[in-house]
């Protein structure tokens, strides 16, 4: 293993102190002179048309500053989310905003507004809309297909018989809109020793960001300053500018800290632009902090699945074919894409020799959906784990063995296109986890002890974990400081900071001499990827690497130009550029930086590569002449899918009289290439484990089908796991084998860290119940109690958004 100075070492990210002491500023902590406070009036019904708004009572109400309605903001074509709408499509859809001298006055004003809404039919379960005669969630149709070939509404209905058969677990015969396949699926099943089919439901549930999204905005000389709650930083800029209707150069985004996003704040969301419009209308700064309840509406939820899967296995356990059908609950705004991603995950994690995916995205009048940690991959991970156990049982194999036989490795080809992977070591992850967990002993232990029964389970998680083509930017100033400009958002993973360590590694500099700039457009940040999709680590170690390499090349060239010789005569170390054959001859970084300013041109940022993004260009323009500039677009070679992988092992003890279980042991293994930041990785693996435990058994998304009213609009009602619902110790480790397509061997891990957990726990619950597969997440307490009592479940088969 390479002996790195910074890579693979723990460090203290600079925002930690503020978070521990409470000094960290989130969007709602900012105040400016003249600022007023806005609150939202949201739709009280699930689907309708606003026919009249009467705010006349506010005309004389003390403290009220103004009202913003859908007429004041750009109209948006359905089914996309608008800033404000006159066509609400879910309870909680924002209709208007009121600004006042304080939030209390604004909230009081809400009670004096009269909004008349003509009610329209609505659906809270895709199957209720899909069935012939069922209501459509939008007047334009009940299906919205997003595709490169053209997006649009459709109306798709299944006959009563088709819905009944699907509910009964049979292969769906109704119309679908998405299909891909590879290999000979029919032949794969013909060659299988064991074949089974299984229906499944995975409930989508809220993102539950602790920071209810907030934005404050004001205009200065035609530029809109937005203090937002953003998951990404530079990546927000194009979308935010588009929402505000201005050039990107006329927007400044300040988002130093974000209280969670989990996929719900990846790009600029409409409500973040509301204060910009309101501020323009009122001529005053406006802050909008939505309520906890509204965060459960506007803050979005995971896509729910209602599906069917058929799998075939050869005698040796290899999966010969898989056939997957998924109805996606895409909410009112047609956001999702989880279904096909789930199919992709089946292809990658279990490597069936042949596979087909079919999907149907159905609109509902429930919380808007959005990418949530492992969107698609983690839902299907929970579905697959107990089914892999079932296959193992029918083939008389160890559940670990069947996973190893089908494990993705560096030669596996994946997805419909059968693409290569950059590298993959799932077998190593499984073996390392089995060893730490002591799988053989736990798997073979006596299971029953009075009312208690032990269950063990294995889970595998996957998400693509990297992208390419973004920019890196660093600057060395004459005081010897190394400025690392990071355009990634500060979601809480610390990757905005840990990825800059790649630049420090290249520059062989001391971490104490480095200054990270982030969280504010005016901090001159480069064009960076979204802080999501597990991509930051792979993508921005590369971007920081190329920027630092550019700086090194420039420093060598400057030194050669100053001291004689050619650049190749020089090397770097100890924050000096020195002559390789005469190390005493050289220049400090500080001196080189001062010289760069004198020499100008590309050295000082006066000129820059023409392939860098306009955001990076503006950043360079602003800092040009202040030091030596290292700036480059990542054009390093990259081919194939970049997998982030994880494996988990869980042991539970389930009480057969109460349906409750305790998690006795948890081991999670990351397979993310070289470990960049051990503490950060452990945080991801543990946080992912907890979230997976919530998805497996606790977290709910309940809608009343009578009125479209959601039952879960608070942390308590949603059932997120508490400290006492998870094991006191969550053990984690990593395979730590380098990926060849990253300069330091690193790949991402965020999402698989959760997928392996929900899969392992679902598998363990099934194991504890003698292999019973519920075909549903979460496996709630009542489901376990009913199963043990031999009673039917309360809900209709394949029903969703219910208890």
């Amino acid at each position: 293993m390479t002996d790195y100075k910074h890579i693979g070492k723990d460090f203290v990210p600079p925002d930690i102190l503020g978070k521990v002491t409470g000094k960290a500023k989130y969007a709602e902590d900012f105040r400016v002179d003249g600022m007023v406070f806005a609150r939202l009036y949201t739709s009280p019904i699930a689907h309708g048309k606003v026919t009249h708004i009467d705010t006349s009572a506010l005309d004389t109400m003390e403290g009220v500053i103004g009202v913003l309605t859908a007429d004041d903001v750009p109209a948006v074509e359905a089914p996309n989310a608008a800033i404000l709408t006159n066509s609400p499509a879910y309870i909680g859809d924002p209709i208007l905003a009121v600004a006042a001298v304080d939030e209390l006055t604004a909230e009081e004003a809400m009670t004096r507004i009269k909004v008349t809404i003509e009610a329209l039919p609505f659906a809270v379960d895709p199957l209720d809309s899909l069935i012939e005669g069922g209501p459509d969630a939008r007047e334009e149709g009940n299906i919205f297909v997003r595709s490169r070939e053209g997006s649009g509404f459709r109306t798709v209905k299944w006959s009563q018989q088709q819905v009944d058969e699907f509910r009964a677990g049979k292969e769906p015969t109704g119309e679908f809109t998405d299909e891909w396949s590879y290999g000979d699926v029919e032949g794969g099943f013909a060659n299988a020793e064991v074949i089974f089919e299984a229906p499944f439901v995975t409930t989508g549930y809220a993102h539950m960001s602790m920071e209810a999204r907030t934005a404050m905005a004001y205009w200065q000389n035609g530029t809109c300053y937005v203090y937002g709650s953003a998951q990404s930083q530079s990546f927000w800029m194009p979308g935010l500018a588009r929402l505000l209707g201005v050039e990107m150069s006329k927007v400044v985004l300040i988002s130093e800290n974000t209280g969670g996003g989990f996929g719900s704040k990846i790009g600029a969301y409409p409500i973040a632009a509301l204060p910009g419009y309101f501020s323009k209308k009122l001529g005053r700064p406006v802050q909008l902090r939505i309520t906890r309840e509204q965060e459960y509406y506007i803050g979005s939820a995971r896509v729910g699945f209602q599906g069917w899967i058929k799998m075939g296995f050869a005698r040796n356990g290899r999966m010969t074919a898989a056939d997957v059908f998924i109805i996606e609950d895409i909410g009112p705004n047609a956001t999702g894409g989880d279904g096909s991603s789930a199919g992709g995950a089946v292809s990658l994690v279990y490597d069936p020799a042949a596979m087909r995916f079919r999907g149907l995205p159905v609109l509902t009048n429930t919380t808007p959906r959005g990418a949530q940690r492992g969107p698609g991959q983690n839902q299907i991970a929970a579905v697959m784990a107990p089914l892999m156990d079932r296959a193992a049982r029918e083939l008389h194999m160890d559940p670990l063995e069947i996973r190893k036989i089908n494990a993705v490795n560096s030669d596996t080809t994946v997805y419909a296109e059968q693409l290569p992977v950059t590298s993959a070591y799932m077998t190593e992850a499984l073996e390392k986890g089995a060893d730490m967990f002591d799988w053989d002993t736990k798997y073979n232990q006596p299971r029953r002890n009075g009312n208690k029964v032990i269950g063990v389970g294995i889970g595998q998680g996957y998400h693509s974990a990297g992208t390419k083509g973004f920019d890196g930017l660093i600057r060395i100033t004459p005081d010897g400081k190394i400025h690392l400009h990071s355009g990634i958002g500060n979601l809480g993973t610390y990757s905005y900071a840990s990825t800059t360590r790649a630049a420090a590694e290249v520059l062989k500099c001391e971490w104490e001499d480095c200054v990270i700039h982030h969280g504010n457009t005016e901090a001159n940040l480069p064009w960076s990827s979204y802080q999501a999709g597990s991509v930051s680590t792979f993508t921005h170690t590369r971007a920081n690497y190329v920027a630092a390499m550019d700086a090194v090349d420039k420093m060598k060239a400057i030194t050669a130009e100053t001291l004689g010789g050619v650049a190749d005569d020089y090397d770097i170390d100890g924050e000096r550029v020195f002559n390789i054959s005469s190390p005493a001859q050289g220049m400090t970084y500080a001196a080189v930086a001062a010289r760069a300013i004198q020499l100008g041109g590309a050295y000082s940022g006066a000129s820059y590569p023409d392939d860098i993004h306009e955001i990076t260009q503006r950043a360079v323009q602003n800092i040009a002449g202040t030091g030596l500039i290292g700036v480059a677009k990542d054009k390093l070679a990259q081919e194939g899918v970049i997998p982030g992988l994880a494996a988990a092992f869980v042991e539970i003890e389930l009480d057969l009289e109460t349906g409750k279980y305790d998690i006795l042991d948890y081991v999670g293994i990351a397979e993310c290439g070289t470990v960049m930041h051990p503490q950060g990785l452990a945080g991801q693996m543990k946080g992912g484990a907890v979230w997976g435990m919530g998805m497996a058994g606790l977290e709910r998304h309940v809608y009343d089908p009578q009125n479209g009213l959601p039952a879960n609009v608070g942390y308590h009602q949603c059932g997120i796991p508490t400290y006492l619902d998870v094991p006191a110790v969550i053990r984690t480790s990593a395979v730590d084998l380098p990926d060849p397509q990253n300069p330091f061997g690193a790949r991402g891990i965020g999402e698989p860290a959760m997928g392996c957990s929900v899969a392992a726990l679902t598998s363990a619950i099934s194991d504890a119940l003698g292999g019973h597969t519920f075909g549903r997440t979460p496996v709630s307490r009542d489901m376990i109690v009913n199963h043990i009592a031999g009673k039917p479940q309360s809900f209709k088969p394949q029903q969703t958004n219910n208890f």
Partner: protein
Amino acid sequence: MAKDMMTRFELYQPADIAGALELAGKLGPDGWLIAGGQDSLDWFKDRAKRPGAVVDLSRIESMRGIRETDSGLEIGALATVTEIEENTLIKSRYAVLADAASRVASPQIRNVGTIGGNVCQDTRCWYYRSGIDCYRAGGSTCYADTPEGMNREHCLFGADRCVAVSPSDLAPALVVLDASMVIQNKAGERTVSAQDFFIGPDTDIERMTVIEAGEILTAIRIPNTWAGARFYFEKVADRNTWDFALVNVAAAIQVENDIIQDIRIACGGVECVPRRMSVAEDIARGSAKNEETARLAAGSAARGAVPLNYNHFKISLLENLVLRAIRDS
């Protein structure tokens, strides 16, 4: 609806019960009594309840503390749930109450929430809490008791236009300990047994207890009757903390020579009031304390239950908890 924004109200902080009673009488329906605030503030922040005045009882010293008396214990209504959980007298003599206290909400809530508030708290029916116009809120319908109502957490027994359940963990423990609830009003003091303190929708659909406007629960007295008995408390909720019971059970059993001499069992989460398991008690009383008795008695626990669409699992859970209460106490 969770608006995170309380309406304005006048705050009164009387120093004694007389002052509080005077305020309560004067303010009438516009006044709201608050102790730890763990239920009240939820209502206020959700703007579903908008009292014009709040009477904060927390400064009334005489309502604090846990005192030994000739006939047992007197617990001030302002004693926090943590104090109940940690009190050595309660732990040694009435462990069922300490055990129940240890399972209330979360440590943070227990530190602030009071025993008075715990037994007076309103039901957690999610429809009702969302502020809609159900029967309990003065309207003319129950959204939970319909063919499509989401009623997993609702009642098995005693439905009468409303299917909400008692959310308290302390209430069943107080019922099995045969506690007396001390209520003060302008006319003086009256005591009501814990069993009779809680009322169902058939008695008053808008209240959970017998407390009338202008009255204050000031203390809870626990008689010596069950001191040192065998006890059992168990709560099954979705989560291990910060959750309400799907079903809970409290039991007090007097055993001599392995024969159950006397027994009281009460369950929460299955009816609007803590439900006495009278038939199970009758079956168990006089029988050997063993698995067979426990199973016989448990078999009666759900007799008369009328499950709703999503809560028939509570029948199995109720039977199993009664079984455990007798078998494992």
